[in-house]
């Protein structure tokens, strides 16, 4: 009997939980699904942009965030979004440029148009590339971001020494381009700098710290680290602090998390590259609305640019507003 009661309690809890969270919704407006890559401050700010645009433009947005990074986490949620049958557009950051093609093609086959933000499918050239079904890619020019990071780090370490790249996952368009841009500049412009890595932390900050720590042990003369996103830069910063090398090993952080800014205050991080996730989210909704209204000249690729933050300009409100801040 105890067990029956327990079962009943579970059922009631499940139902009331669901009821409390879901809100009754209207109809006849276009509906957009928003499916970012993973839970992190970058995508949370993007979600703010998506929601602001939805409110401004009077469309409805359904957001689902995969608990972990990867196609195996993202695809079942994508499938469920498709199965709803009421979405007109999906705004997503594909977690793999090759593996997510088939699942997103299935969304298209179900009549849902795709806009990719932050990361893209194939080579990102939706006009002439191998994958051309998404309406647009809205995100950073990550190759250029990698180049800016390389020049920033080279300047911070005086143009010579050994640097190390810590990244998240291979075959993800965004971080891959950052590595390429970074290496390109180091080879072409700074022959006295030796580049190690990248190591991949699989979106795990602890692992990023551990990997960076090991590289520091192995290379006592390490001069700098390039962390290619939220998790990499955070982990690299931790490792440098833990090794007592604050200031001696310079970190360039891709993504302007509060943590990266704090580490900059402590002299660990010399340069923070802020992307504009709010813009990406806001514009993606605008694109969906425009496409639905019959606009046919939407650009296939929009680069949202960067704000480059260092200790000299971090107090300037015009720059500081690009730090990723999420209301609690």
């Amino acid at each position: 009997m105890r067990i029956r009661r327990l079962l009943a309690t579970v059922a009631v809890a499940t139902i009331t939980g669901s009821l409390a969270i879901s809100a009754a919704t209207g109809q006849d407006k276009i509906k957009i699904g928003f499916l970012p890559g993973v839970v992190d401050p970058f995508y949370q700010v993007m979600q703010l942009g998506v929601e602001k645009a939805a409110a401004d433009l009077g469309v409805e947005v359904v957001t689902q965030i995969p608990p972990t990074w990867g196609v195996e986490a993202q695809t079942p949620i994508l499938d469920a979004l498709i199965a709803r049958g009421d979405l007109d557009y999906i705004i997503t950051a594909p977690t793999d440029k090759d593996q997510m093609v088939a699942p997103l093609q299935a969304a298209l086959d179900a009549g849902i148009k795709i806009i990719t933000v932050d990361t893209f499918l194939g080579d990102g050239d939706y006009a002439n590339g191998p994958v051309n079904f998404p309406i647009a890619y809205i995100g950073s020019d990550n190759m250029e971001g990698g180049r800016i990071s390389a020049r920033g780090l080279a300047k911070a370490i005086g143009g010579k020494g050994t640097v190390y790249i810590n990244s998240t996952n291979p075959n993800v368009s965004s971080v891959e381009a950052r590595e390429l841009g970074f290496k390109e500049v180091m080879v072409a412009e700074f022959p006295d700098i030796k580049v190690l890595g990248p190591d991949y932390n699989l979106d795990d900050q602890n692992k990023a710290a551990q990997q960076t720590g090991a590289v520091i042990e192995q290379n006592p003369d390490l001069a700098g680290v390039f962390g290619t996103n939220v998790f990499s830069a955070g982990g690299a910063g931790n490792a440098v602090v833990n090794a007592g090398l604050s200031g001696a090993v310079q970190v360039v952080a891709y993504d302007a998390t509060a943590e990266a800014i704090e580490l900059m205050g402590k002299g660990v991080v010399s340069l923070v590259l802020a992307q504009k996730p709010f813009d990406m989210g806001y514009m993606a909704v605008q694109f969906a609305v425009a496409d639905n209204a019959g606009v046919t000249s939407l650009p296939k690729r929009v680069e949202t640019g960067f704000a480059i933050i260092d200790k000299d300009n971090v107090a300037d409100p015009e720059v500081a507003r690009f730090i990723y801040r999420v209301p609690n």
Partner: protein
Amino acid sequence: MTETADVKAAKKRLPSAQRFIIGVSKFWPWVFLGLMVLFFLIAVPVFSGGASFWSVRNSQNILVAITPVLLLGLGQTFVIISAGIDLSVGWVMSLASVFSAHAIRATYNAGVPLPFAVMAGFFAAVFSAASVGLVNGLIIAKLKVPAFIVTLGTSFVVRGLALLFSENTTVIGLPDGIRDYGNESLFYSIRGDGGGFYVLEPPADLTTAMIRQMDRILPWPVVITAVVVAICIFLLRKTQFGRHTYAIGGNMQAALRTGIPVDSHIIKLYMLSSVTAGIAGFLSTLRFTAGSAVIGDPLLLSSIAAVIIGGVSLFGGAGSIMGTVIGALIIAVLTTGLVMLNVQAFWQFIVVGVVVIVAVLIDQSRDLIIGRGRSGRGGA
């Protein structure tokens, strides 16, 4: 002495309340699944503005979604019935995915026609997986190391191997036609005017509106998984292999005394567990058109949860394949239903966790009533 005889004998001398609990223990996963589907059927249209949980497309989506978790769970069902555990299946799936992608790409680039290249991929997946199972089984059966430790160890080894043999976690560059194997279906049904029912291939030159009205029925991964389910049901219920599995899990000492070749049986069990995981890896390579060295990692715990929700006793000796199918369905229905209700997918973890614990409580209370305490159980 089989499980059913055991239960029947016990039932005769029990009061009705306890008989009721035994009944509940047998059917509650079905009832729970039914109630959950009913809940979503009512709640989804009400709370998400016109979306319907009851559609052909959604049912097929759920079936596709359960395939990887279910395949990992199928072999695991045998292992847990024998009172063992296999913690390596997630990474075995990844390893198989990587090897099958290599095999498909290499054979296709060497000029082999695509269907045969896909077959090569299948065998690469199955053999790479089976060899891990062989190692697991040998160490567990011959060296008498607990299964938990052995498979934990091999899961790390296999993880390393999968990452080493992949090209930075993902093996890409597979032939274009692969997408059809992983994503096309047995039947197609187009609703509305000019629609119809098609076998194997949808008609060419469909309009966008017609594509939107088209349901894919029984996608290939579902068909293949259904075949594996049928084979597993047959193995467990109709063959000596199945009877030995129950016997070893029920009482290892008794199984030895009755002359069951326990060691070789255990080796076969772990190979079976790896092979179903290998098939999952093969199917994921087809579905995502690439081999991935990390694909199975997040699925291991879900697959064990599916097995336990389905009523397989962690103490061994009891359980069924259909139970595991229901367990996997419960998890998939939950994910899909919560997403359709606009509830964050994280709630899925909380509900699954509670359901797992309830499942074990029910299992234990049944054992108490039947009088089969844990003391009588052997098992590694």
